[in-house]
């Protein structure tokens, strides 16, 4: 890092060097046995250099690569949008590491303790340490370190299955047990019933919320809005875009995974509502997109592309069971969300594992091969109620960490293959 800074200081008016070091241990479980143990160390230096309206972003490992990059940048035409560096200087340091996670990274022998189930268990337990160091031309030097413990388990009960996930900044065996219990509970529903195409009141589990809110939050990126690939493209802050009961936060100052104190431009992060009680509050912004929109950065850089850090949907006032008291369809898990139109939010996503049909508050069976085929705007507008209980979720098809309740949504279009 020092070599890079020394080189850049003498030659470039504006720069940022972001070093990321991630060390991970990933244990893959198949049929209740350990199938693979992966230990991966990834180190990268991402460098943004800028002169006027010319810039280059490179991954470099040697000063020679930097020198080459400088030569390239000098010949580039001016860019439509150029990354900026926040004027904040000084040193910042924040270390939040958990010894339990660090121990699991070097010794995974406790895994078998988590696999005691009446069903066959599949899934992943992973532990990681992230170190993030940012040096900017404004004199900012930040160091942050975090540990993550996360996992998901899918259990098989004949033709039926259940899946759940967790994320935690601490090594927490209790969360692993809850994850397995939830997966077992959902796999235990075994009556098959048919469900035709139509509009239903659905309850989305926190797993499904994690997947869909990831899409909402990336559409809230100022870049998505600026390029027209967003349901927020024709909206302005203050517009009602969702149910009054629906609040979606980006919360990098909490304790959840992917919480950081500063963004890639050295701008302090802050907690903010993207949507507050149904009202669109703010896009997610870095310095350059904020300038285009005539706003302040929200501390979400990403050079050029602002992105969410870690999400939270505010809890409601009803219990999990209370949400299921009527005639509803509970989607416990989903995957494969794809958009037909990012401007009007038309999408579909496929339910997987247990899709449980409740009538009069009682489960009457599970159905299969259904998908939500609706508009994202309708999903957030038709939120009727949310549970008091919330779960920290991050998994393979919802990698952006967040905290979510169960959510009852009226009149959702389901389609069956």
């Amino acid at each position, binding site marked *: 890092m020092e070599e890079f800074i020394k080189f850049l200081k003498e030659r470039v008016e504006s720069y940022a060097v972001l070093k990321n070091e991630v060390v*991970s241990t*990933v244990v893959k479980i*198949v049929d209740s*046995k*350990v*199938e*693979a*143990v*992966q*230990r*991966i*160390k990834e180190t990268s230096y991402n460098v943004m250099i800028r002169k006027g309206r010319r810039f*280059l*972003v*490179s*991954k470099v*490992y040697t000063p020679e*690569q930097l020198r080459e*990059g400088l030569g*390239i940048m000098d*010949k*580039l*035409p001016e*860019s*439509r*949008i150029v990354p900026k560096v926040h004027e904040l200087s000084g040193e910042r340091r924040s270390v939040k590491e958990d010894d339990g996670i660090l121990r699991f990274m070097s*010794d995974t*022998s406790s895994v*078998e303790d988590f696999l005691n189930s009446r069903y066959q268990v*599949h*899934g*992943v337990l992973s532990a990681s340490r992230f170190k993030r160091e940012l040096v900017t031309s404004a004199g900012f030097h930040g160091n942050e370190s975090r540990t993550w413990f996360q996992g998901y388990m*899918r259990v*098989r009960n004949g*033709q039926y299955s259940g*899946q759940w996930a967790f994320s935690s900044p601490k090594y927490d065996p209790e969360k692993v047990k809850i994850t397995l219990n939830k997966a077992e509970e959902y796999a235990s529903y075994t009556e098959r019933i048919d469900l035709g195409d139509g509009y239903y009141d659905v309850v989305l589990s926190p797993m499904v919320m994690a997947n869909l809110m990831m899409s909402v939050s990336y559409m809230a990126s100022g870049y998505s809005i600026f*390029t*027209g*690939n967003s349901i927020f493209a024709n909206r302005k802050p203050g517009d009602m875009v969702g149910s009054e009961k629906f609040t979606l936060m980006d919360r990098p100052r909490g304790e959840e995974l992917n919480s950081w104190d500063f963004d890639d431009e050295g701008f302090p992060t802050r907690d903010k509502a993207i949507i507050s009680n149904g009202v669109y509050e703010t896009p997610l912004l870095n310095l350059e997109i904020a300038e285009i929109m005539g706003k302040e950065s929200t501390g979400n850089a990403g050079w*050029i592309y602002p992105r969410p850090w870690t999400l939270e949907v505010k809890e409601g006032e009803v219990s999990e069971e209370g949400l299921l008291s009527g005639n509803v369809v509970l989607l416990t898990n989903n*995957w*494969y*969300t*794809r*958009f*037909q*139109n*990012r401007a009007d939010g*038309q*999408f*579909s996503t*496929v339910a*997987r594992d247990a899709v449980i049909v409740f009538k009069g508050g009682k489960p009457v069976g599970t159905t*299969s*091969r259904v*998908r939500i*085929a609706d508009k994202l705007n309708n999903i957030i507008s038709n939120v009727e109620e949310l549970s008091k209980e919330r779960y920290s979720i991050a998994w*393979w098809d919802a990698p952006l960490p967040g905290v979510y309740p169960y959510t009852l949504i009226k009149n959702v279009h389901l*389609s069956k*293959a």
Partner: protein
Amino acid sequence: MLAHEDDLLRLTRRFPYSYVETRYHKISSRVISLLNGELLGVYRDEEAGYSVRYLNGPLYFVASRDPDDLRPTTEKHEGWEPGLWDGEPVSGSYSVEEKQKLDSQNLEEKISSLRDISREVLSQDIRSKINNLILTYSESVEEKELVINGSSLISGRVPRVLISFNLVMTGNGRTITAWFELGQSGGLESLNELRVREHLIEKVKSLDHLLQSGRSVSPGRKDVILSSVLSGIMAHESVGHPFEADRVLGREFAQAGTSYMAELGLKRIGSEMVNVADDPTVPKSTGFFLIDDEGVRARRKLLIKNGEPNEFLHDRFTAPRFNYVSNGSARASGFDREPLVRMSNTFFLPGEMSFQELLEDVKEGIFFKSYMEWNIDDMRLGQRYTGLEAYHVKSGEIGEPVLFPILEGTTNELLSSVDAVDDSLQFFPGTCGKGDPDQGIPVWLGGPDMRLRNVPVKVI
């Protein structure tokens, strides 16, 4: 002699196990992105490092940029893998030629070419408005060197060129957001061979026509013709993935899911007209390789033959569970990822009929030319494709565009309704996801135009 042979052999000696793969893997890439003809950004990336995978109960995989970081681990688990197919690994090298070297033009020249294309597209005489055109050019070179069990030495080099474009267009009170990709392995000659300029202009005109003249379509059972864009994604999603043997065995159950071949054990999947292959040896393909990452020579696999299952995709670990040998399907997306059973270039085989003959016999139907939204359940049975460019077909003639028809059904239902495929074969690039940590790997998806009889068509 491999450039990193000494490091790889030293690593092999450090891991005293019966099966040891060591790999040096580097991917260098450059990306140029333009927004409405103006430079948006230039990005240079390099991912390089070493990995070792060995079997000691479970599979163990360690990876780092620095080979000195890599050591055997000491913990013990009862593993899931019972063993492996121990066929002798081969030595050899493969590469894709850059007829015109990627570095034969400097960045300014490339940016200038892309700007010319953008400006020509943006100046088309159309009634709709192009709100935004993001044109992204990506060139990469993937280099790998492997030593298997200390004896087999393998090297591979595949340069690739990809062009993607995102269009946001409005007209007639409608908005479309669209995304397409073109790509192949090779050098800068790819830009001409892929007909990027012509493709983009044709796309903009076609979307303008759709916005201005697109009509709603009535739902119900109809004859459908799928272009190679649609048959390609179908080959990949509903045949390639469920024919990955690790998925059939349950190794991906908690991630990318299972397979109808495991859950339902289907003996027939499609009509006699359905033949699907996966072939890493296709020239210019993005999924090209000749020796896989476990030292097994690559070859064409015929997954479905005349509508019936014929062969799964195997690596060394899945093959013995089926009393089979590996057919060379193991690939890793980068130095920090384990090799997995992966598709390469997956496609429906063409027939002998012309496209006109395919059309002639359709009294009333829909031609799906491209799609945006698609997905499939994790058993790879229930799937959905929503048309973007789609046209009414009447009495054997392609008519006016229709708005967003949906083909939704099960794999066996849709493939059993295929009664004809034409004699064309086109490929499109894709990035296939699998594994944990997730691995996006370059593939081609392809096929001929394909006719399906009396299949369910829905509407948004």
